[in-house]
């Protein structure tokens, strides 16, 4: 099914935004003496490279770039894409794996070999002049997607396991975003793969199919997740926003019930915060807690709510 959306129209501006956002950060990092310390340097370079990969993965943009190298005997752009992608997938994930786990030789070999195979197959595509470039594009995208999918799949269970162990808010936020990154990455890769196979089988000429547009949107989502991961802390916490809003409204209902049972009215006639932003949602939760605590002394002790409320205010039931 064809899509009316030209993916190049949003992929190019987004990749430019990515660079504009990260170029100053990269230069800032270079000024520091620790920049050359692994894995910081490599990760930042990889993040920067992602802007290039983002463009090269788009069929339309890749074809336009390839037009400059039509005279050569190599599919230069395709090779560049496969090399950068393989590097990103293999070493980028490898460093994360090493950070989180014991040195796992089979997994590392698995990743390196996978990337190596992808690279070798790409070189086999040197049959370039004999095969239409469109097919080379599709095949190389599929190969990279397989490698991407494999790496993401190996990391998702590990990240979920780490998430269950985290009690610290910032770590939890990091792992949630990382999980989101892996989810979008693997979903995007799967869609690329299905779309690529379908295009090869049907010998499609029109690149912007609905499936492909969806895959590109997934890629935008994973770039966004990565931007949040690399960016300042304050963006990280937004992943908690839906949970905070839910807690706020639950507490608000509880507060109303507590005041009804206690036969009290809320003592202050002042505007309370509304959960429009993350910090105001957190403030709202805090305010609701204070309001409930204020009403607790007036709550009859024979109500079902009293022991529950006391339990949640552990160690301080003497109200």
């Amino acid at each position, binding site marked *: 099914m064809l899509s009316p959306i030209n993916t190049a129209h949003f992929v190019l501006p987004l990749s430019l935004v990515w660079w504009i956002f990260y170029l100053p950060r990269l230069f800032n990092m270079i000024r520091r003496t620790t920049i050359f310390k692994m894995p*910081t340097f490599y990760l930042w370079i990889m993040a920067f490279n992602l802007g290039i990969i983002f463009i090269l993965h788009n069929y339309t943009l890749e074809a336009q770039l390839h037009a400059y190298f039509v005279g050569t005997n190599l599919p230069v752009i395709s090779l560049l894409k496969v090399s950068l992608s393989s590097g990103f997938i293999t070493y980028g994930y490898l460093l994360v794996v090493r*950070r989180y786990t014991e040195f796992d030789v089979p997994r590392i070999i698995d990743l390196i070999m996978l990337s190596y195979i992808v690279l070798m197959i790409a070189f086999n595509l040197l049959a370039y002049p004999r095969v239409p470039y469109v097919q080379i594009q599709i095949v190389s995208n599929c190969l990279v997607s397989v490698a991407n999918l494999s790496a993401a799949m190996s990391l998702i269970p590990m990240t979920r396991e780490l998430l269950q162990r985290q009690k*610290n808010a910032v770590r939890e936020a990091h792992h949630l975003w990382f999980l989101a990154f892996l989810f979008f990455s693997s979903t995007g890769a799967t869609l690329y793969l299905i779309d690529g196979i379908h295009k090869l089988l049907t010998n499609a000429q029109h690149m912007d199919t609905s499936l492909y547009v969806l895959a590109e949107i997934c890629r935008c989502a994973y770039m966004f997740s990565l931007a949040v991961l690399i960016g300042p802390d304050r963006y990280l916490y937004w992943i908690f926003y839906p949970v905070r809003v839910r807690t706020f409204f639950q507490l608000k209902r509880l507060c109303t019930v507590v005041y009804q049972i206690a036969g009290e009215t809320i003592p202050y006639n002042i*505007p309370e915060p509304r959960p429009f932003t993350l910090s105001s949602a957190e403030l709202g939760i805090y305010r609701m807690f204070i309001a409930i*605590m204020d009403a607790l002394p007036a709550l009859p002790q024979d109500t079902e709510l009293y022991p529950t409320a006391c339990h949640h205010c552990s160690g*301080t039931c003497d109200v």
Partner: protein
Amino acid sequence: MDTKRVRSAVDSLNYGWHRFSMLHFIEHIATVRQRPLHVNGVPLAGFSGMCLSTAHNDYIFYNLRYHAILQLHTQLHEIAHLMLGHTRKLDLDRNSDLGSMLLHINNRIRVAPNDPIVKQEEDEAEYFAIVVQGYIANHRRLHQLTLSDHADDIYMPPFTGNSVSGG
């Protein structure tokens, strides 16, 4: 209630909210008011806290029997009373009995619900506390009031290699 007056009172504190901790904030209030501020927890019964301003000192008492989070909130609320000029200065000599001071305050509190002026002062103080808490939340320091764990420790997230601080 004059919300603008309360907001300007908070803004006039010129406090660095990104460094907020209750102790630091109390020290700052004492500096702003240019007089010692004594904050004491006492096992009171019946109400959460009170403030008192004598000729040379400010006092805040809060109920030690209440939840720790509520104790901190009470301190903020009482600081608000001090900053908004809700306290009547007591001309007490050095030998004054703390008990009589408490009795004085207790009487005042007891009449509070029926007194519209005191009711307005209570609203203003609570609004002051909300504004302060809003600044604290915006600077991601609410954990100082909720006494929750926060990532002040060094953490190496997957892609940055930078330490992440709670500030």
